[in-house]
């Protein structure tokens, strides 16, 4: 009995070992870039620079087994809400990045974390809550803290597992429950047991306060989706590059493909999250 327990502990520990993924040199997805660059001259001859660069990486997840899909559909029918394949707690994700200042002068940079669950993608540029010029733009899910990089220097950082977990819940709140992005990102939700849906944003009455949707079923924590796509937005004041990789711990044990980003796309789960959009009326 003790020997079996020891073997199980060992196997469990191995399943929890992290894997590191980064965009391959010749990615099939042109938006999956291992290194992004911004702040350099944009080549128009007008003295303007490339203000920001974006990249996105879809996690290499195994296809769902038919029996798991059947069980998930049955559970969704019981709960009355969609239950995702990749749930919160199935994987733990961290994003490590390194900025290199290629300029001869010091500069600042912003790194913003966005992303998508299997249901919806969140891009702050597509969520316009007000056409007022003085209104703040919709926030990113995390990051956007000014970082100072010396001339020719480098700076490394990380979006930790708890930050990515929080970002996943924020996407759920914003996209499945119509929570205001500012409310979602400014409040710590990582311990929430459920998400209460609100009525959708009314572009004709943008000043109206949030109202609970009386017909919506609260989304329980077991139906929270985890991010399956990592989006980064890089905005430096000087010519800089950002290189990143994604660290994943497969808690469930059968989610990550052994070949990771080298896997054949046919061997991976295909996700098609819908871009969440809100457009305020002029």
């Amino acid at each position, binding site marked *: 009995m003790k020997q079996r327990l020891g073997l199980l502990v060992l196997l469990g520990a*191995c399943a929890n*070992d*992290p*894997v*590191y993924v*980064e965009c391959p040199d010749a990615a099939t997805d042109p938006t999956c870039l291992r290194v992004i660059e911004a702040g350099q001259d944009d080549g128009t001859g007008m003295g303007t620079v490339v203000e920001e660069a974006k990249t996105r990486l879809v996690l290499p997840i195994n296809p769902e087994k038919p029996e798991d899909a059947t069980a998930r559909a049955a559970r969704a029918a019981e709960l009355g809400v969609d239950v995702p394949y990749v749930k919160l707690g199935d994987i733990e994700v961290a994003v*490590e*990045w*390194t900025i290199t200042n290629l300029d001869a002068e010091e500069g600042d940079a912003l790194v913003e974390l966005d992303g998508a669950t299997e249901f919806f993608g969140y891009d702050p540029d597509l969520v316009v809550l007000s056409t007022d010029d003085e209104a703040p733009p919709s926030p990113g899910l995390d990051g956007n803290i000014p970082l100072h990089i010396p001339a020719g220097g*480098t700076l*490394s950082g990380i979006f930790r597992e708890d930050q990515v977990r929080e970002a996943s819940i924020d996407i759920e709140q914003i996209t499945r429950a119509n929570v205001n992005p500012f409310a979602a990102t400014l409040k710590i939700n990582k311990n929430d047991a459920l998400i209460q849906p609100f009525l959708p944003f009314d572009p004709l009455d943008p000043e109206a306060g949030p109202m609970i949707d009386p017909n919506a079923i609260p989304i329980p924590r077991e139906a929270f989706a985890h991010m399956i796509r990592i989006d980064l937005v890089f905005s430096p004041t000087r010519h800089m590059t950002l*290189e*990143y*990789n994604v*660290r994943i711990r497969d808690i469930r044990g059968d989610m990550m493909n*052994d*070949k*990771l*980003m*080298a*896997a054949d796309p046919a061997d991976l789960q295909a996700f098609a999250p819908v871009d969440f959009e809100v457009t305020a009326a002029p």
Partner: protein
Amino acid sequence: MSAMRRWPIVAVLLAASPVHARPASSGWYAEGGFGAVTVLPKHRDDVAVGPAINVRIGRDLFSWLSLGISLAASSHEATVPAPPEGEWFQLYRGGGDLRIGGRLDRIALFIEGGAGLAVISSNILDKVMVTEPGENFSIGFHGGAGFEYQLENRHYALGLGVDAFLLPQFDAMKAIDSRLYLRYTY
């Protein structure tokens, strides 16, 4: 013969004297030790020195020959170009080996060699092409030498061993495993 000339002769005679011969058990043995694994070039820049533990069980077939199996684990910081940064991985090794040695009173000297399997805990070295996607296992070959100091109790000895090992499937990574160990012979 002068007194000065007699001293070396006396010293040798005393050293060989059966009164100071330290008895040592022979047969089944177990060793447990700790030490460090240092990766050699060309991968030295990508893998930092890491602490290691190892256990070995074997049997003395003759006074000069023993067979054994060993398990070892070491933990290393991956010093690959950032990112990632500050991440660690583990190397697990197991295998069988042959040890040939001899005893000089309290000191036993040996050379050993063997083969087995190695497992790496993560793919962090994919970045520097030490491992390839989906590759976690490698055959391992090792060889080395060491010595043991027999304690007064005939069952126990303290040992110091240094082995070099080669992992062909991990881009032929080579490393030195040095260890201090306690041996118990039944």
